[in-house]
């Protein structure tokens, strides 16, 4: 297993390297560079040329890329073309908020989705299953921003129970005012609970109908043991894979929610950087988010393997 993990990590490094090249190429394909788009409406051609020279964007693309890549090797994420400061600063400023949001969301989503999934899977087609299925499918069909605005209008503006935005909120305020987290987490969690509980339910249904479960039942394995030892580990595999996806979505930030609640997270920073053609920042943020996604996916695979060792033959 350790060998497998090492292989996967090595592969991950290659994937990240390819991703870096790809992100660089794609951002180069966008119209205009950082000098062009900065104050597109204000600056004359001379000022743009001067800015381009100052930002050293007049160098050939290959040189710019290798320059950035050699920095990465030494752990330097590069310098933002917009702020002139290190990309690491932008990352540290945004990643904290995003991680808090992600952690709280996962803490809500995982128990809730697993419980719902199991409960529904156990009584497939029952009243509970049908009602939960209807609600989750319906909720899943509501776009995030609609849900967010509905919740804000109802719970914040009408009833005044919860803060409507994070306007003027510092990192420390989150601990003192947990109410701030309720609406954003609800919106993000709503979709994720839907996706995850469906996977867990599907896993349960499949496994419960499997031959080995019927055999175990026939052999008189007590129901409790049957569920915990035989059904759950197998049924959890699709759910865990889904969870890895959910996790990297969260780390990448949730743009809509960040915009509606004025949350200064990673997604907003990334979109701003793309718009400003701030290539080093785009690359730095994309790389870190991708690395997190790879780690999640690896962790999910290792955990699945731990639960169900026979899956190894599939590799």
């Amino acid at each position, binding site marked *: 297993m350790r060998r497998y993990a090492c292989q996967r990590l090595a592969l991950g490094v290659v994937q990240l390297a390819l991703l870096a090249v790809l992100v660089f190429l794609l951002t180069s394909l*966008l119209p205009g560079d950082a000098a062009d788009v900065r104050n597109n*409406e204000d600056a004359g051609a001379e000022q743009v040329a001067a800015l381009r020279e100052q930002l050293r964007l007049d160098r050939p693309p290959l040189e710019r890329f290798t320059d950035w890549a050699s920095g990465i090797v030494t752990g330097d994420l590069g310098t933002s073309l917009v702020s002139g400061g290190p990309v690491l600063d932008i990352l540290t400023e945004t990643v904290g908020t995003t991680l808090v949001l992600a952690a709280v969301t996962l803490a809500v989503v995982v128990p809730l989705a697993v419980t719902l999934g199991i409960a529904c899977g156990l009584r497939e087609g029952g009243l509970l299953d049908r009602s939960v299925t209807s609600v989750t499918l319906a909720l899943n069909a509501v776009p995030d921003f609609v849900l967010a605005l509905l919740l804000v209008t109802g719970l914040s*503006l009408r009833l005044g129970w919860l803060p409507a*935005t994070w306007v003027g909120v510092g990192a420390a305020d989150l601990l003192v005012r947990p109410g701030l987290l309720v609406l954003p987490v609800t919106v993000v969690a709503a979709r994720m609970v839907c996706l995850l509980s469906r996977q867990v339910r599907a896993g349960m249904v499949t496994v419960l109908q499997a031959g080995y479960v019927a055999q175990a039942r026939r052999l008189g394995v007590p129901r409790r043991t049957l569920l915990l030892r035989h059904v759950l580990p197998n049924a959890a595999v699709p759910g865990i894979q889904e969870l890895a996806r959910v996790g990297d979505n969260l780390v990448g930030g949730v743009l809509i929610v960040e915009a509606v609640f004025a949350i200064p997270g990673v997604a907003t920073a990334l979109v*701003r950087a793309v718009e*400003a*053609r701030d290539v080093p920042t785009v690359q730095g943020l994309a790389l870190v988010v991708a690395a997190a996604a790879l780690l999640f996916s690896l962790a999910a695979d290792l955990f699945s393997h731990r639960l169900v060792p026979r899956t190894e033959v599939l590799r």
Partner: protein
Amino acid sequence: MSIFHNRREFLALTGAAAGALALTGCGAGSSSGAPVADGRGKPRRGGQFRALFTGGGEQETIDPHAEALAIDMARTKALFDRLVDLDATMAPVPRLARKWESNADATVWRFTLRDALFHDGKPLTPEDVLFTFGRILDPKATTHFAQSLLSVIDLKRSRSAGKNVVEVALKRPGAEFPALLGTLGTAVVSSRYTDPAKPVGTGAFTLKSFRAGRAFVAERFDDHWDGGAYVDELRILSADADARGNALRAGEAEFGYEMTPTFARTVQADKSVRILAAKGSTAHAIVMKCDQEPFDNPDVTRAFKLLADREKLVQVGLAGQGVVGNDMFGKGYQYYPEDVPQRTRDVAEARSLLKKAGALNKTLSIYTSAVATGFVEAATLFAEQAADAGLRVKVTTGASETYFKDQLAKGVMGSHRSGAMTIPNYINDRLLTKSAFNASGWRREDFDATFAKAQSTTDAGERGKLYGRLQRTVHDEGGLLIWGHPDWLNGVSSRVRGMEAAPPNTLDSGRFDKVWLV
């Protein structure tokens, strides 16, 4: 140079309330007195004021000479003052300069400075003003947008002429020079100002903390020359349009800059929020390039202007929040010729002009983009309106981020907007042979010459006549189909007093030293 200091999703909804604005503190030579504002109650000291603007992330700055976004301008306005600022009609009003005068050909200007204190307790001197000009014009600085406008200053010949008089020499006549000092990136800094993170200004607030993309906190400066602010603490924060609206309604902010027409409609019934609408004056246009076929024939441009159904364009392009335009920039501003009759739709006349010019059976294209709300909608609607005369107009949509530069090279027609700026600035920026953003390809020697003549005409009335002539020429023959002037919408909490609707880029826009809370 421009106007709109907001790159993205910028609703180019700007406006000036023409004469309708009760302007505070712009009487010549007077220091701004207490605002008559809402006319209710006496100003109250104290409290925290939170103002929300569209953010710019890492691009945000509090360097007054590098300011570019609306949020930057609001922050620097709190910390610094300009020598001169602009009122709601874009006419210069005194700020740190108590008064000014020029020589006969407007090549030397003398500004008399007010007794003002910097935040470090030292008085404002002519040296600070000269240092400011030097800093703005520093050739190494690439983000000082006032550079091109202020390059007319001859720094070597400018000098201090006494304790509180500064004499500014210009390289060529500049009758509009005081107004130039009221534009983006011109605030006066102390000669001890070296680090943008440690601002030394004369503004009504002193900096407490600033982090780009996040927060700006400032405190009342007790020794401000203009009487100082009423609120103790000012926070200028970034939030997207939806979040601004929700925060305002939830009482989490006192001011939201640049609200959408939809929000304005939504809160009509909401007692906790008021909309301050500066009635339309800045411009949305379809431009036709006069240096290209078929628009090199003024009959064709006139025909196109006759084809536009302006009311419908305002309904669709501006969600009804604006007034119709008359193909001239600067409605309600100083030097705007109000006596030119409003152009209205006349399809028959347009058709006969087009027939005469042989321009009927061509397919033309409008280059547009979603950079401003209403651009694509207005272009599409205009294409349909042009079809009524049998014209085929195709709409091409391009990238937002580089639109304003691309438009100069692409398409024979395009979408165009302009925010609040003085009429001379607009002409200088868009309508002269050497203008950087000559969106309508308007290049005429006699036009340039008349503009140059106005710059050496010190008599404001005479100058106004010259500008009027230029505007009429553009109205009759130019490639600007200015169909609408959007309203500029800001939202304030009902607790706020002392704030009036003001067009962007003017003294009273995003100004928080005269507001108080009840």
